[in-house]
């Protein structure tokens, strides 16, 4: 009983109550030694579960049309605000922060009947790809203890894989949903920029951040997407278009012989582990066997994506994190409280940032400073447009782009922790989608010899999540015989 459909069936057959289900998940999560959660909201969760049971007793069946996530235990990355519940962003600087409001995406989950179990561990402010940069300790890989779960939504991916929630929310600024989803073997979706309101998502890089779901199945992720999507007047970048019907799309068979999948030559040239290459090739063969057309193409500017990304993300972060000044929220140490000098006051407060955050704030401040901003920030934004134009051209020829999520499977703990540039280069396949605002997802497509999961990367044109979900669902059901195309 691990998917939404299975849970709803069990609830209707009275095999379990929502309170029992919630307790089960909370117990497992609280016992885990892998550090997936930072904070639990047990009382709140049990209250929500009790209300769901009361409703179920009254209605006699799961009100799935009004509440598609009825009674479903869900975890939230700890950069999403929840009224009255500690929200840390994985940072010591927000150790005691209790937000006075709930993120719009979370409100939508709760309105759809979800039970929020707690807040999931993450790299501090989303900065990292291994979940080793959290002030609350690292997250362990759910199946291989010597490996990292990926980041920055490491807690969100590991918790889903380890059955410590049915689904979770993460955020993806440069791959932070897709990379851990790939490393942990779950489904992770970064929707189109603007598809889901960012109101209440504590900003890292505002032009790149996007909230998205992680789940065990495409179908479950699609159900979350439907609930999360839609215009929100509280976020001026949320698109004013109708919510998705991704679940419906997941139940439809793709018209394979009309679909063209682009294979960027840059994604397959050098550096890719042989086992990952083989898995992706198998996926391509399967797509071709369904009748889809494979189209080699080039994204020539993608070689600059990591450089562009790390400049733009650092610049935006240096600006966004200026609000961490200890005045309205945040920890104020004794030293800071005693000083009468405002500059020193800010410095004492901000000394609570972790090293990766400090490094990126310095890089961003430097790249935005007088005399350097044209050479770095402006130049990066110009190359960003070239990267986006490459995708615009590509999507005139193909319906989707496929490739790897990462050049390796989950690497060993500590392997890249002391070399920031090495860590950054690991994002080579994921950052382009954020720079261009595209929807993209990681889909389990195999394992390496050590049993570590491999993710297939699927990218679609802006606002084409439904088509992407339809293909992903068919792919995930390959071998079951029920979704062979025509």
């Amino acid at each position: 009983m691990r998917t939404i459909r299975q849970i709803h069936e069990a609830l209707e057959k009275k095999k379990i109550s929502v309170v029992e289900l919630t307790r089960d998940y909370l117990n497992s999560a609280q016992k885990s030694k892998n550090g997936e959660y930072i904070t639990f909201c047990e009382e709140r969760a049990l209250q929500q579960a009790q209300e769901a049971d009361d409703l179920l007793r009254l209605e006699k069946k799961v009100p799935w049309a009004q509440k598609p996530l009825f009674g479903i235990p869900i975890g939230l990355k700890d950069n999403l605000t929840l009224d009255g519940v500690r929200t840390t962003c994985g940072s010591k600087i927000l150790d005691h922060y209790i937000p006075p409001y709930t993120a719009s995406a979370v409100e939508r989950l709760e309105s759809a009947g979800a039970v929020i179990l707690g807040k999931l561990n993450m790299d501090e402010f989303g900065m990292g790809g291994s979940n080793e940069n959290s002030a609350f300790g690292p997250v362990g890989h759910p199946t291989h203890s010597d490996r990292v779960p990926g980041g920055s939504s490491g807690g969100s991916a590991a918790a889903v894989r380890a059955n410590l929630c049915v689904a979770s929310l993460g955020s993806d600024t440069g791959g932070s949903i897709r990379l851990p989803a790939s490393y942990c073997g779950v489904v992770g979706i970064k929707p189109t920029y603007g598809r889901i309101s960012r109101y209440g998502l504590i900003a890292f890089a505002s032009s790149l951040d996007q909230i998205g779901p992680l789940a065990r199945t495409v179908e479950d992720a699609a159900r979350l997407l439907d609930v999360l999507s839609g215009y929100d007047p509280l976020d001026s970048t949320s698109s004013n278009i109708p919510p998705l019907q991704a679940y419906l799309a997941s139940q439809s068979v793709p018209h394979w012989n009309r679909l063209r999948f682009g294979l960027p030559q840059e994604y397959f040239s050098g550096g890719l582990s042989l086992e990952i290459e083989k898995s992706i090739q198998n996926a391509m063969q399967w797509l071709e066997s369904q009748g889809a057309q494979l189209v080699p193409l080039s994204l020539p500017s993608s070689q600059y994506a990591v450089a562009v990304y790390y400049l733009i993300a650092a610049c935006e972060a240096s600006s966004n994190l200026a609000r961490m000044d200890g005045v309205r929220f945040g920890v104020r140490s004794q030293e800071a409280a005693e000083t009468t000098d405002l500059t020193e006051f800010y410095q004492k407060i901000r000394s609570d940032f972790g090293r990766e955050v400090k490094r990126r704030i310095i890089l961003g401040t430097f790249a935005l400073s007088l005399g350097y901003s044209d050479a770095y920030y402006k130049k990066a934004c110009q190359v960003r447009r070239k990267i986006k134009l490459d995708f615009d051209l590509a999507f005139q020829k193909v319906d989707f782009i496929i490739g790897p999520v990462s050049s390796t499977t989950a690497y060993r703990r500590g392997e890249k922790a002391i070399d920031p540039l090495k860590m950054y280069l690991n994002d080579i396949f994921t950052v382009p989608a954020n720079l261009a605002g595209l929807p993209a997802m990681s889909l389990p497509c195999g394992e390496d010899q050590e049993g570590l999961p491999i993710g297939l990367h699927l990218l679609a044109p802006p606002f084409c999540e439904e088509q992407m979900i339809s293909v992903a669902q068919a792919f995930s059901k390959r071998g079951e015989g029920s979704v062979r195309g025509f």
Partner: protein
Amino acid sequence: MIELNEKLTCQVAHLARLELTPLEVKVFTIQLNEIIQYVEKLQDVDVQGVVPLVHPFDGIAFLREDDIKESLLGLDGKPKILQSAQDIFEDSFKVPSIF
């Protein structure tokens, strides 16, 4: 190519109101130089006439009416926004004097 030295690292850190330990200054200067050296590859790209892209869908913003709404109040009747502040005076945030 621009090279960061320890003095410049300290200057930039000061602008960002970050206090670094001597070890952080040393390590960050080396690491940031490696990163800057890497991003230098952008200087090879011909961007003549290319308009910078600062937002994925530039020029599109969905603005709401600028309506005034009541502040969120906590159970104590005070604005909820004050509840995470470490030091407040009546309904205000308290900071060290700037004079």
